[in-house]
């Protein structure tokens, strides 16, 4: 077994992609994820694989489309504005049923915003940032170790379901250094007989998302929706901490979840029973876990580095069975433990 190394979240994600068999990486510089293309520019050629610094995120994601259509594992990474620019092609890839991994080391928005970590891209990732009816699998790491581990998961899920997968991290997770272990894992290899490899001894393969015949596009959509339902049934990753006896349940992902974990320890020391539901897949969302918890929880507090995006899905899951409150910071602001504790104590008093 390999030893743990001290490594940044960005580099852990990059190395994990290599270990997961990513054969082609395409990217365009943007802070706070520049360590990824820089790392890949060195490591991919070492492994005899493809690295291109594209002329834009538009080009990068479309190179990913081409590489994916060729049947190999492929990835691009960017941060919020760059991810916005990619959305047309992401919609095409969802329609084409092409697997790929897209990591968004998100930053503060809207617009050029700033380069600090933020969680304002939840809607874009989870509700479908591009046009048309589709969902993406969205995975949210909360540590450097998970930046690596969930990258393996992302590639496996992309191939398994033939769909783009988003790793939604943030600038803090990308930049922070922690001890992590990046192991070569067994790769789930899936036969891609749909890939464009030249029509040798078979009928030509076509990768497209256009359906013009009567009802054809609706049929294609129905097929996609069946797949999304299947994913919902089969894939949902969630971490629960101290929820069984909790009166107060935090719902938070990524960096916000790390803060909530420490808040819980503080509150429990003060005899306030708090717990955490941490969605690891933001889509599919752990609706069932939250719904079950709503049967015994006093109230929910969703903590995000946004104006309140995931909280909508928490409310939908709770179905009015308990109050759902929100605490958030925007534009790169980080939720402060003292503020959260203050708010919880106030809500706790009022709820008695």
């Amino acid at each position, binding site marked *: 077994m390999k030893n743990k190394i001290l490594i940044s979240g960005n580099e852990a994600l990059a190395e994990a992609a290599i270990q997961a068999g990513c*054969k*082609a990486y*395409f990217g365009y510089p943007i802070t706070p994820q520049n360590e990824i293309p820089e790392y890949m520019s060195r490591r991919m050629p070492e492994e005899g694989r*493809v690295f*291109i610094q*594209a*002329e*834009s995120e*538009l*080009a*990068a994601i*479309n*190179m*990913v*489309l*081409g*590489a*994916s*259509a*060729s049947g*190999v594992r*492929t990835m691009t990474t960017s941060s919020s504005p760059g991810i916005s620019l990619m959305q*047309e*092609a992401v919609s*095409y890839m969802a329609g*084409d049923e092409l697997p790929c991994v897209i990591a968004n080391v998100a930053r503060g928005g809207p617009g050029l915003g700033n380069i600090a970590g933020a969680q304002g891209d939840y809607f874009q990732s989870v509700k479908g940032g591009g046009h048309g009816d589709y969902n993406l699998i969205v995975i949210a790491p909360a540590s450097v170790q998970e930046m690596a581990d969930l990258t393996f998961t992302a590639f496996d899920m992309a191939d398994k379901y033939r769909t783009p997968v988003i790793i939604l991290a943030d600038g803090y997770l990308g930049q922070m250094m922690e001890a992590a272990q990046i192991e070569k894992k067994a790769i789930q290899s899936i036969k891609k007989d749909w890939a*464009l*490899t*030249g*029509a*040798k*001894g078979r009928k*030509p*393969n*076509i*990768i*497209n*998302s*256009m359906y013009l015949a009567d009802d054809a596009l609706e049929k294609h959509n129905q097929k996609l929706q069946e797949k999304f339902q299947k994913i919902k049934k089969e894939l949902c990753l969630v971490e629960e901490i101290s929820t069984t006896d909790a009166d107060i349940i935090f719902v938070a992902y990524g960096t916000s979840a790390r803060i909530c974990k420490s808040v819980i320890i503080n509150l429990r020391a003060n005899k306030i029973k708090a717990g955490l539901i941490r969605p690891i897949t933001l889509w599919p969302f752990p609706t069932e876990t939250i719904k079950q918890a709503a049967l015994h929880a006093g109230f929910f507090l969703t903590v995000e580095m946004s104006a309140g995006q995931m909280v909508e899905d928490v409310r939908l899951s709770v179905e009015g069975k308990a109050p759902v409150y929100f605490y958030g910071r925007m534009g790169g602001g980080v939720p402060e433990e003292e503020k959260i504790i203050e708010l919880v104590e106030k809500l706790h008093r009022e709820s008695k």
Partner: protein
Amino acid sequence: MKNKFGLPESMKDTVTFYCPGCGHGIIHRIVAEVIDELNIREITIGIAPVGCAVLAYNYLNIDMAEAPHGRTPAVATGIKRVQPDKIVFTYQGDGDLAAIGTGEIIHTASRGENITTIFVNNAVYGMTSGQMAPTTLLKQKTTTTPLGREAKTAGFPLRVPEMLKSLEGTVYLARETVIAPKNIMTLKKYIRKAFDVQIKGLGFSLVEVLSPCPVNLRLDPIKAYKWVEENMVPYYPLGEIKNNIL
């Protein structure tokens, strides 16, 4: 010997949706004939554009991908880099290549990607029913230049191979048209050379084809062909614009 006038193996036995007199059908056939003659059908991958040729994958009997509008060369780059042993070409209209996808074609050419581009210049946006293209001629009427294209407000028509010529990555750039059999013969020679460049691994090659779009020129096919000859050819000179084949 094969029947010259039969269906090339690289074309599917189907009816195209192109309008009567459209150049796209002729160009498809020439590309298919060249692929057959070079015996590369089983290793060739084409990328269809967004434009009238969006359904090229229904007509060509080879592996093909659809690309978002203008991103055709980026998709081709992704395919070629992971499969350098395959022959990869893009088929693009003037809106796809010279407007929305200008960035992609310039950088793909500049990187010297070892791919081939068939660039169909019909001086209009065919698929969206006749708006101005970057290649629309001055004074030419389109649905978005109802009084004729004026340089002052709409800029000048773009000569793509001339623009790409200065890029170190480009190896072979040529322009022909489909308006007469002798032009078609020359065009086929150029397209063959362009694919040869790629087979030899020399770098980026592009052939521009001046192509009539009778429907959007509001002309019958014969007059549309004449229009190409009298208006497009003088502005877009035919011939090999760059030939660095060693």
